[in-house]
């Protein structure tokens, strides 16, 4: 079967797939480490969702006639390198919230690219519903931790991770923009 994906589309979808796998592995480990309770419950669903998202992207790529690229680096790797290791549950949730917002932003940007393959659009729609819930539960969990960690410390942590997020995004933006631009142009050229 001839691939219906351009080289850049394949790279980007494979990058999403790798990042979803990394997210699932990270949250799976945290779910294993955490004490039983509501946060562990939601974290368990979160890592299951991320695993499903990796499967959605894998299926999507294969149904479009390609094989996912094996990428060594995920967005999370760059994130941890820039933001530093989160040291406690509140910091983990803070970096997660920042990251999830970035994912929704990136997916929203991509899903509005004209003339996407319908299956890619469908895959974004399936994932975005989960991502909205991720932001909701993580925001709620952070709010509940404010009495334990202190509201000021929580806000300072969120602010620090937002700065790191901006720095990471800017560092990869050219790479992504270039690929997205080529992708848009490629689609238009096929018309």
């Amino acid at each position, binding site marked *: 079967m001839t691939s219906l994906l351009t080289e850049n589309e394949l790279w980007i979808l494979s990058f999403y797939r790798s990042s979803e796998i990394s997210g699932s*592995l*990270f949250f799976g*480990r*945290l779910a*294993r*480490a*955490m*004490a039983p309770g509501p946060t562990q419950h939601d974290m368990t669903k979160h890592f299951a969702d991320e695993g499903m998202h990796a499967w959605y992207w894998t299926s999507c790529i294969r149904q479009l006639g390609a094989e996912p690229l094996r990428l060594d680096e995920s967005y999370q790797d760059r994130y*941890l390198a820039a933001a*530093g*290791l*989160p*040291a*406690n*549950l509140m*910091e*983990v949730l803070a970096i997660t919230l920042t990251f999830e917002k970035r994912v929704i932003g990136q997916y929203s940007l991509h899903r509005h690219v004209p003339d996407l393959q319908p299956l890619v659009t469908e895959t974004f729609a399936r994932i975005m519903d989960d991502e909205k819930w991720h932001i909701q539960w993580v925001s709620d969990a952070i709010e509940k931790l404010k009495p*334990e*960690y202190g509201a000021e*410390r929580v806000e300072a*942590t969120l602010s620090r991770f937002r700065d790191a997020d901006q720095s990471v995004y800017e560092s990869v933006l050219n790479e992504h923009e270039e690929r997205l631009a080529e992708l848009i142009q490629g689609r238009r050229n096929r018309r």
Partner: protein
Amino acid sequence: MTERTSFTGSVAGLLRLPAGQVSSETELSALSVDSFALVELLVRLQEEMQVRVFQEDLREVKTVGDLERVFAARRREQS
């Protein structure tokens, strides 16, 4: 069992490493674990010891002994 042995033993156990492979002098970078495993370790240690440590505490941490001192200091502060 001393507190020191207990901490290094916990680190070894949580990382599923032989106890003899981890001492206070062991550098975290020598433990052959990835960053995800280190975060998992920190969360587990805090759950077990009922202590909260923070990102800024880790800036100067290089060895398991350094990490133990961070936990001890935070435990004194939070008890």
